[in-house]
C-alpha cells in the first residue's frame, strides 16, 4: 500500500493552510487512519505550534532529508491520537535545504511505514518550497478566502497543480483538486460585502469541498495548541469534520453558510 499524499496549498499567504493541515490530519486520524503531517515551510516553522507539539521537536524534516536523523527519530507522535505524527519544518535559513530527491525519499519511507495519508502543509507563494510541497501530491486542498487576491492566486495554483506536478509530468492523471473556502462570513455575504460560495465556485469553475466559517474558536484553538477540529462544539471544528468526511468520500450538505439566527444570549455574548 502506498500512502495518499495530500498537499494543502494556496498561493497567497495567511489564508489558513496550516490551520487546515492540522485539522485535516487530525480529522483523518480521528477516522482511524495512520497520518503524518509535514511542515514544508522551511525557516518559518508553525505547524508544531498549531498541533501543540512545539516543545517536543528534536529533529526536523531537513535533518531527515540530509540523513542527520532517521524518520523514526523525527516523527513526533501526537499526544491525543497515537496514529498521528508530525514532521516539523527546519528553522534553517537555507532555502535549498530541501531537495526533490530528499522529499521523495521521505515520502517513500512513510509509505513503507504503513502510513495511509501524508499531509503536506505548503508555504505561501509559488517558489521552491511550495513547488516541492505539491510536486508528489495525489490530492490537493486549495485553501481560498472570499477575497480578490486570494481567489486569483488560487486559480494560479490550480493551474500549477495541473501542469507542474509529478502526476502531470508523467501523464498519470490529474491531481484531485479540492477547493476549501475558509474564513467565510455569512453575515457579510448576505449584505453584499463579501464574495459568496457560488461567486467563488463560478469564478474558479470548481465546486468547494467545504466552507469553514470565520470563527473565534480558531484563535482559541491555536492559543491552546489544539487543532480546531478537536473542538467538536465549534462551527469551524464541525465544518472541518464535514470537510474531512467529504474528502473520505462521504456526502454531506454544506453548513454554516447562512446567517445564523441568534438567540438573545448569543447576541449579547457572541458565539
Amino acid at each position, binding site marked *: 500500500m502506498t500512502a495518499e499524499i495530500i498537499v494543502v496549498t494556496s498561493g497567497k499567504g495567511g489564508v489558513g493552510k496550516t490551520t487546515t493541515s492540522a485539522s485535516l490530519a487530525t480529522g483523518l486520524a480521528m477516522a482511524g487512519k495512520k497520518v503524518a503531517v509535514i511542515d514544508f515551510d522551511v525557516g518559518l516553522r508553525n505547524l508544531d505550534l498549531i498541533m501543540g507539539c512545539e516543545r517536543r521537536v528534536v529533529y526536523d524534516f531537513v535533518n531527515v532529508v540530509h540523513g542527520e536523523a532517521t524518520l523514526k527519530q523525527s516523527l513526533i507522535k501526537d499526544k491525543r491520537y497515537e496514529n498521528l505524527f508530525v514532521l516539523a519544518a527546519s528553522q534553517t535559513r537555507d532555502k535549498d535545504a530541501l531537495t526533490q530527491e530528499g522529499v521523495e525519499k521521505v515520502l517513500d519511507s512513510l509509505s513503507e511505514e504503513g502510513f495511509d495519508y501524508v499531509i503536506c502543509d505548503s508555504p505561501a507563494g509559488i517558489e521552491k518550497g511550495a513547488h516541492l510541497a505539491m510536486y508528489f501530491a495525489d490530492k490537493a486542498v486549495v485553501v481560498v478566502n472570499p*477575497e*480578490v487576491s486570494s*481567489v*486569483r492566486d488560487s*486559480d*494560479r495554483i490550480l*493551474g500549477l497543480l495541473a*501542469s507542474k506536478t509529478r502526476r502531470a509530468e508523467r501523464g498519470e492523471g490529474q491531481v484531485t483538486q479540492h477547493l476549501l473556502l475558509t474564513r467565510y462570513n455569512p453575515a457579510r*455575504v448576505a*449584505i*453584499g*460585502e*463579501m*464574495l*459568496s460560495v457560488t*461567486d467563488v465556485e*463560478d*469564478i*474558479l469553475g470548481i465546486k468547494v469541498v467545504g466552507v469553514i466559517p470565520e470563527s473565534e474558536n480558531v484563535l482559541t484553538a491555536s492559543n491552546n495548541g489544539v487543532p480546531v477540529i478537536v473542538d467538536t462544539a465549534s462551527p469551524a471544528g464541525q465544518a472541518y469534520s464535514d470537510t474531512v468526511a467529504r474528502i473520505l468520500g462521504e456526502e454531506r450538505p454544506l453548513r454554516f453558510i447562512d446567517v445564523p439566527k441568534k438567540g438573545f444570549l448569543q447576541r449579547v455574548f457572541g458565539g
Partner: protein
Amino acid sequence: MGILDFLKRRPEPTATVARERLRIIVAQERSSRGAPDYLPMMRNELLEVIKKYVHVDIEAININLERDSGHEILELSVTLPDGKAKSDATNATTAN
C-alpha cells in the same frame, strides 16, 4: 453629511464589483497560461502602436491565445472608443 449619517453609514455592497473584476482577470490569465513569455511585452508594444492612431487604454486590448489540434491562433481585439481615430494621427509620434 451630519454626524448621524456618518454613524449610520454602511459600506457599499462591493462583492459584485469583486466578482466581475475576478471574472475578467481570471479568464485573461487562464488564456495566457502556458503562452510564450513575449506576450505581455508584445501587448505593450502593440498598445504603443495603436495609441498613435486611437486613444485607447491598455484595458481595451485583449490578447487571446487559442490552441486546437496543432493550430495556435493569436487573437487580438481592441475596443475602440466612441471618438474613433485621432484626427491628427500623423503627428502623434511627436506628441509624447
